[in-house]
């Protein structure tokens, strides 16, 4: 499929705003900042540059689908929704309030969220079912499921790949946010995943591995959809946990973060390249 080049400057501007939203949600109880920052560019690109999903077509069965399976990266989705007009920006201030539905994992009270998640390895199979129905009905909608690399520990992810292969679901795209960390440590130090490309290929998928923070690379990869007729599409997006905030990037102890107000102010400046933040808030908070 040929597409015109997309204005990446616009996407970069949007992604920067999404990162600001994520940082602002990382206080008064906190959130999973690192994983949200690694997935931010992916999510922004998919909604802005690839998927046919917008605030006016959510009830259209012919629209595309995005399933956020790792779930704890949902601040990146809330931020994207806020920037794209699916969610009022003011509501982001309701994070963890009992008066709204914005908390640490996705839920369908927020229009645009397809399915609740948080228990890993569920949505690959839910997305599989949606893709199967689209095939049965002869539809052309695309179904994307974003998974974490740590999530790939769960066997159900691989069961979904086996079944997608059996049913030749080339309308299904598994996107791996390959940020190289799971909750407590680097993936390769605990349950090694590499060679990940070869694993998915061996299971019958058509695989692309790209820089998940490069909009040009994302666009080039997704423009080639479907990658191969009759095959599950897999995009391994190499990303950096905490991307955009050097003071927490690739830090095993900065998974769930509950920053204090001063740190949030400093981190917002750090995001814009002004300086590094001296973090004093507690690390290794596990939720």
């Amino acid at each position, binding site marked *: 499929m040929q597409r015109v080049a997309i204005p990446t400057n616009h996407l970069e501007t949007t992604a920067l705003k999404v990162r600001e939203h994520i940082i602002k949600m990382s206080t008064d109880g906190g959130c999973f900042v690192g994983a949200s920052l690694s997935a931010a560019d992916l999510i922004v690109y998919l909604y802005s540059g690839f998927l046919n999903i917008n605030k006016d077509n959510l009830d259209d069965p012919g629209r595309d689908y995005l399933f956020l399976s790792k779930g704890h990266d949902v601040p990146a989705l809330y931020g994207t929704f806020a920037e794209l007009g699916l969610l009022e920006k003011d509501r982001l201030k309701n994070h963890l309030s009992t008066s709204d539905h914005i908390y*640490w994992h996705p839920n369908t009270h927020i229009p645009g969220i397809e399915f609740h998640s948080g228990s890993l390895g569920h949505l690959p199979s839910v997305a599989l079912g949606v893709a199967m129905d689209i095939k049965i009905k002869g539809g052309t909608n695309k179904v994307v499921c974003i998974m974490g690399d*740590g999530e790939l520990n769960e066997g159900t992810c691989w069961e979904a790949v086996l079944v997608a292969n059996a049913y030749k679901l080339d309308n299904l795209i598994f996107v791996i946010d390959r940020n190289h960390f*799971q909750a407590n440590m680097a993936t390769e130090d*605990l349950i090694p995943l590499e060679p990940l490309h070869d694993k998915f290929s061996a299971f019958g998928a058509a695989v692309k591995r790209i820089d998940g923070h490069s909009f040009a690379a994302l666009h080039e990869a997704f423009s080639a959809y479907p990658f191969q007729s009759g095959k599950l599409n897999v995009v391994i997006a190499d990303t950096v946990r905490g991307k955009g905030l050097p003071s927490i990037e690739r830090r095993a102890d900065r998974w769930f973060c509950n920053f204090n107000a001063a740190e949030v102010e400093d981190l917002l400046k750090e995001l814009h390249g002004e300086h590094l933040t001296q973090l004093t808030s507690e*690390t*290794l908070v596990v*939720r």
Partner: protein
Amino acid sequence: MSYEELLTQVALSNERYIVMTAENRALVRNIPSKLGNRFIDTGITEQTMIGAAAGLALRGRIPVVHALASFLTMRAFEFVRTDAGIPNLPLKLSSFIPGFLSDGNGPTHQAVEDMSLMRGIPNMTVFAPADEQDLVTMLPQIWAYPNPSYVRINTRKTEYQHSHFEFGKAEVISKGEDVTILTYGLLFEQALIAVDILKNEGLSVGLINMRSLKPVDEQAILQATQGSNLTVTLEDHFLTGGLYSIVAEVLLKNGVTAKVLPFALNEKWFKPALLPNVLEHEGFTGKQIAEKILGYTTKSVQPEISIPQFSE
């Protein structure tokens, strides 16, 4: 003593112990360096961890396994039931953030049917300590017992000094003729507050920390229900299958009846938020509990509820 200190001490003094986790390290942060190859992290693979724990138990080991309560009891349920329950192997399940302790995570992480599921497995034993001191008081006997066990890990701190733990026995805190509150786990903290308020209103109030839900202390339940005008069951669990159900089963078995007021989640998950806000929203603060029992509001003040910090 903390959970981690106790586990380290027990495991170091007995080679049979293996500490396992499905990448939930909050409770065992410092154990890898101390236990060496008797610490096993299987990654985010709850089912495989339980299966492997059964294999280790088959070789004579006592695996103490860790995961978030919802995934340990539900994702791995059939592995627990089939690989630990059927062969009666001593798998020791330590469940992290059960009940209201999953605060802002949402329904995926809310283990509010864990007691029901686990007590339904033949050979399984089920426990819910009131606070950290209660937890470390109970665990040595639970781990030494030959059956598989399920423990709601609760590392919150209260002022209460708990008594010696007797396997299968509840801790009777006080007896009362008007009302007796039966509770387990973190709501013990709120029950203490409710008892104070009720006493200030002139009621004779009993409180029982259930501790062991299976085997359950039937005598404590019978004495409470027969000795009080009203029995209250207080739990961060679905109404179905938890303490309210246990009390009903015990009463029916003994051919008696009683007036019982349940505090539980009735056909719903709870609102995700930080713990103090969850309790307030769901009506489970000590003050709210007391006022629901009384049927009127009081001038009592709800003490501040601390936000859990699951960290080192």
